[in-house]
């Protein structure tokens, strides 16, 4: 384990930013967001959840994927260059870290999404352990240990120091590159980190959603859940606003749009939301004519369809952003509970 004084963090950031783009949570215009680090930015170490998840670092909300134009009666395609490979993402919480793996399963499976791959390959994820969760956190339900998150490197803050533990080869190589900025942690430092983990776990046990389980959910539940009348009641309040999908770290649906600039057509993809009326609209109409079907789609995808295709892995990571941001407070927790996913 390595350590660094918190006061020297900016030195580390400067060193990293010299080589690679570095993204980390900072307070920007009154909210905490993942932002590209520039001189003067300070790591928002106490913040728990950014408003938007860091998924747009690899899967941006809007991305130009191809251009084409007409010249006389000829049709010319101007390909778009792939994005630059590799960034460092610092201060990722355990839930968001898991979300990258959820997205990897989708975008890196055949056929590989080259834009996502280009961004994701060579990127280093440095996670941050949670010590002060909020009432809407329920990552433990999905088997995440927020006090010791995965990632290439994991960090803890104890008093005035930050501790770094390597989790992967990529992480090893990364730390080695900046070895001269770190000092080696001492033995009692390890105990102090363990103590922080212990205390944090005690708080996690007290959370209102600590007892939430995924019992009754999984890849084989389609037939059982699909026609359940509860969906109608659950979806009544839903406005179909799509906020949940936009703040969700794992929602990965996108739409392709063309824009006529006058000289060429820019084809781009942008996030879409299954909560929208026009989601997957086809010539014949839509397969999900009312909000009930759309609502069901989102949660069945997270808790049934995704696990069915990904060895039982759920595509919810329990970050609680949708719980916080839903304007009418209808969310995945209420869905899980409605179907009995509460130990209490």
């Amino acid at each position, binding site marked *: 384990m390595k350590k660094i004084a918190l006061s020297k963090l900016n030195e580390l950031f400067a060193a990293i930013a010299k080589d690679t783009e570095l993204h980390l949570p900072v307070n920007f215009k009154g909210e905490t967001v993942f932002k590209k680090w520039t001189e003067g930015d300070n790591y928002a170490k106490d913040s728990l959840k950014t408003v938007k998840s860091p998924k747009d670092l690899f899967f941006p909300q809007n991305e130009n994927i191809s251009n084409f134009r007409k010249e006389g009666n000829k049709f010319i395609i101007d390909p778009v260059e792939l994005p630059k490979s590799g960034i460092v993402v610092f201060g990722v919480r355990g839930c968001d870290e898991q979300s990258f793996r959820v997205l990897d399963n989708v975008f890196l499976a055949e056929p590989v999404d080259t834009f996502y791959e280009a961004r994701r390959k060579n990127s280093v994820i440095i996670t941050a352990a949670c010590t002060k969760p909020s009432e809407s956190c329920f990552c433990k339900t999905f088997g995440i240990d927020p006090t010791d998150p995965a990632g290439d490197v994991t960090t803890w803050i104890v008093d005035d120091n930050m501790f770094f533990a390597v989790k992967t080869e990529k992480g090893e190589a990364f730390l080695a590159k900046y070895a001269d900025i770190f000092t080696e942690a001492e033995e009692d430092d390890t105990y102090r980190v363990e103590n922080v983990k212990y205390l944090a776990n005690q708080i996690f046990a007290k959370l209102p959603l600590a007892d939430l389980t995924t019992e009754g959910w999984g890849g084989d539940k389609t037939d059982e859940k699909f026609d359940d009348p509860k969906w109608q009641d659950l979806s009544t309040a839903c406005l179909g606003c799509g906020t949940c999908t936009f703040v969700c770290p794992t929602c990965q649906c996108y739409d392709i749009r063309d*824009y006529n*600039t*006058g*000289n060429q057509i*820019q084809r781009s993809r942008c996030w879409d939301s299954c909560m929208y009326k026009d989601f997957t609209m086809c010539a014949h109409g839509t397969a999900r004519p009312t909000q009930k079907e759309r609502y069901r789609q989102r949660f069945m995808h997270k808790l049934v369809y995704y696990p069915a295709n990904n060895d039982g892995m759920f595509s919810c990571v329990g970050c609680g952003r949708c719980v916080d941001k839903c304007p009418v407070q209808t969310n995945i927790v209420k869905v899980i509970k409605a179907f009995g996913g509460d130990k209490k």
Partner: protein
Amino acid sequence: MQVNENSKEFKPLIVAFCCNWCSYAGADLAGTSRLSYPADVKIIRVPCSCRVNPMFILKAFEKGADGVIMCGCHPGDCHYTTGNYYARRRMTLLFSMLDYLGVDKERVRVEWVSAAEGQRFAMVMNDFAKKITELGENVKLGDIRCKK
């Protein structure tokens, strides 16, 4: 926006929406009277000023217009009796909103030009083109993808 290659001077792009019954006819009269105004002004014919949707105006700015002017019959003279009254309210509110967003308020204008006011049409267009030329290229209200 078009840049004249030879002179490199700024040539604004101005879209004018003219109602068919008064202002378009006024523009025709300006032509018949050989009253010149800058070629930067391009006229789009609409049946009535009340046909001009605020979206058209924003669309013009999006695609690179530097100024948009809407012309209609004088209030009280509308061919459809009341069309320009509605247009007047719509445009007042739209312009006020653009100003509120900090966009140059001089880039949009409404003028009432009758079919007999060819001279006034030319004068208005000259004046508007001069104003837009002074303001220069529209940067605050255009889509970056449409810039050349």
